[in-house]
């Protein structure tokens, strides 16, 4: 940062800083302090206590740590060496990543076979799971289930440091054969041990990248988009509802200058019990409520699959793409209150973008095991009856609005479902071939444990 720009940033921060505490904020802190006991000095002084400043207190502790580190390194070396020679699946072995949020080092040790053991470890958990613990090394033991290039991991006893375990759901790892890496549910890249670890990833969509391509980790689709636009990846499979700017189940590419006023949203799902044509026909209804298809309507091909164009008042352009077992919906939504916007962002604008679409239905992800409650629970105390995150409708594409889980935007506030009629969509197909994962939806809100 040059001096002038740095000075501008500094001046801006000083000008805009709001150093007034909120009403009652100090009183709330004092009240909580009054109800909280301090840790014993001996416990609080342990070396790995959060935020402790100062040298290690004892030589023996240092030597102990060095010995432990050497032991772990030796074990890793053995695992890596053995895995390379006798790997039974592409997942087998030790994988390393850097947590993009806190820079901690994460390790994943995956055993052999199609239902391998999975050991997860984060050397410095900064989430709340380990707040009460002396050690911040977060570990979890689980098993994996491999379907194609996807491994979903379940951790029946959750994960944690010492005193408590927290549920871990929504963990999956997709193998990328072109680069021999794993891409996880959070978009973090994992490298094989012994190879350079990919720099901790962060949202770099602001950086000029020339001709960017977005690859969905949920919906099995890849598409190029304008360099000045940004992306908001889906965090869960699409099981119901009309996809829009706020849908957690939609991948969204949007113009940062207009946000929800100009975007492309897309998602996919298996047909369930419907035929491809039935799925498409029922999908049109919520898109164009009361007005039928309306406007232009045509068919051609996208990504090698049959595609249908729909246009109606709610959507500038919508495209249904039909593969053998899976349907894709892609919406271009343009703010009709901004004059002339739809003259630019129309079919002529969208079509070249569609030509960059690559479909990978075999890589789509339709859900993991049943969602667990997101509140931390004690070790071994996970409920026997898992909570489903949303009830799926019995009738695919029912025309009545369906209540969906509100999305919390800030504590105590919730965004209500869209006023538009919401379609309920088909139940995912039973596990089969590459899409051989259970159909239950994943938890809407990632649990604390998902990023230790």
């Amino acid at each position, binding site marked *: 940062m040059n001096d002038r720009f*740095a000075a501008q940033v500094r001046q801006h921060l000083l000008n805009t800083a709001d150093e*007034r505490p909120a009403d009652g904020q100090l009183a709330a802190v004092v009240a*909580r302090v009054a109800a909280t006991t301090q840790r014993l000095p001996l416990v609080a002084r342990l070396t790995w206590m959060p935020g*402790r400043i100062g040298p290690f207190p004892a030589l023996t502790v240092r030597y102990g740590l060095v010995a432990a580190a050497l032991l772990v390194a030796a074990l890793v070396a053995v695992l890596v060496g053995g895995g390379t020679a006798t790997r039974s699946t592409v997942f087998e072995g030790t994988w390393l990543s850097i947590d993009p949020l806190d820079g901690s080092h994460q390790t994943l040790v995956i055993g052999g076979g199609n239902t391998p053991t999975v050991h997860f470890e984060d050397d410095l958990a900064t989430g709340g799971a380990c707040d009460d613990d002396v050690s911040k090394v977060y570990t979890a033991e689980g098993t994996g289930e491999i379907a194609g290039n996807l491994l979903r991991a379940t951790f029946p006893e959750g994960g944690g440091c010492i005193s408590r375990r927290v549920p871990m759901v929504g963990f999956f790892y997709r193998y990328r054969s072109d680069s021999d890496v794993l891409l996880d549910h959070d978009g973090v890249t994992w490298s094989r041990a012994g190879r350079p670890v990919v720099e901790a990833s962060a949202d*770099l969509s602001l950086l000029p990248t020339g001709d960017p391509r977005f690859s969905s980790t949920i919906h099995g689709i890849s598409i190029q988009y304008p360099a000045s636009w940004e992306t908001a990846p889906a965090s869960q499979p699409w099981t119901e509802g009309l996809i829009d700017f706020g849908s957690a189940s939609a991948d969204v590419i949007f113009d940062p200058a207009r946000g929800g006023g100009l975007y492309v949203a897309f998602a996919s799902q298996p047909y369930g019990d419907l035929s491809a044509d039935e799925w498409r026909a029922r999908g049109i209804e919520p898109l164009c409520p009361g007005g039928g298809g309306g406007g232009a309507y045509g068919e051609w091909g996208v990504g090698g699959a049959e595609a249908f164009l729909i246009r109606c008042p709610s959507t500038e352009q919508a495209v249904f793409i039909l593969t053998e077992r899976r349907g894709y919906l892609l919406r271009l939504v343009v703010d009709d209150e901004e004059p002339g916007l739809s003259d630019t962002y129309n079919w002529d604008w969208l079509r070249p973008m569609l030509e960059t679409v690559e479909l990978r239905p075999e890589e789509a992800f339709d859900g993991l095991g049943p969602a667990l409650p997101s509140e931390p629970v004690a070790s071994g105390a996970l409920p026997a009856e898992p909570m489903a995150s949303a009830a799926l409708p019995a009738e695919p594409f029912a025309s009545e609005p369906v209540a969906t889980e509100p999305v919390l*935007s800030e504590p105590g506030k919730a965004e209500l479902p869209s006023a538009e009629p919401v379609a309920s969509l088909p139940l995912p197909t039973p596990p089969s071939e590459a899409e051989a994962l259970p159909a239950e939806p994943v938890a809407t809100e990632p649990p604390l444990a998902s990023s230790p």
Partner: protein
Amino acid sequence: MRDLVIRARGGDRDAFSELAARSIGRLTAVARMILRDEYAAQDAVQEAFIQAWRSLPGLRDADKFEAWMRRLLVRACFSSYRRSKRVETLEIRLTPVDEPATGGHERDLDIHDQIERGLAKLPKDLRAVVVLVYYLDLPLADAAQAMGVPLGTVKSRLSRATQALRAAIDADNRVPSRTGEGVAS
């Protein structure tokens, strides 16, 4: 300050309350800048203070209380971010273009608006390093300590933040017009 820390370390709640009163404003400002959410910022500050109170007996050097508090606050901010990161991607604030121009200060206002928008778009870890270095004026080593990451990581994050801010401002300059204010949802 040092006396207060020593007394609080010994379990004196009144002394800790005084410490909190002295620093809560600045810490809240930092949390607001990093999280850009008033409620989340208040929660993070409260969490940092509670963590500080509980662990204060482990702080050997009373003179390092402020640095220690900053680190606890940054950690609390990141914890808060983890709980809400999906929502964050949707918080896109647009700034109107039809605000009245203000004569000779127009350009300065423009750049500050652009910086504000650029900061809003930065990932939290990058924004945190900008706040620590440019608002609190911390040396990079202290910022690294506050964030609990190596010095090299702070350097690379600051570099990436700079790139991203510049890119955001450049992109902003390329947008010919805007259409009103609002938070996309």
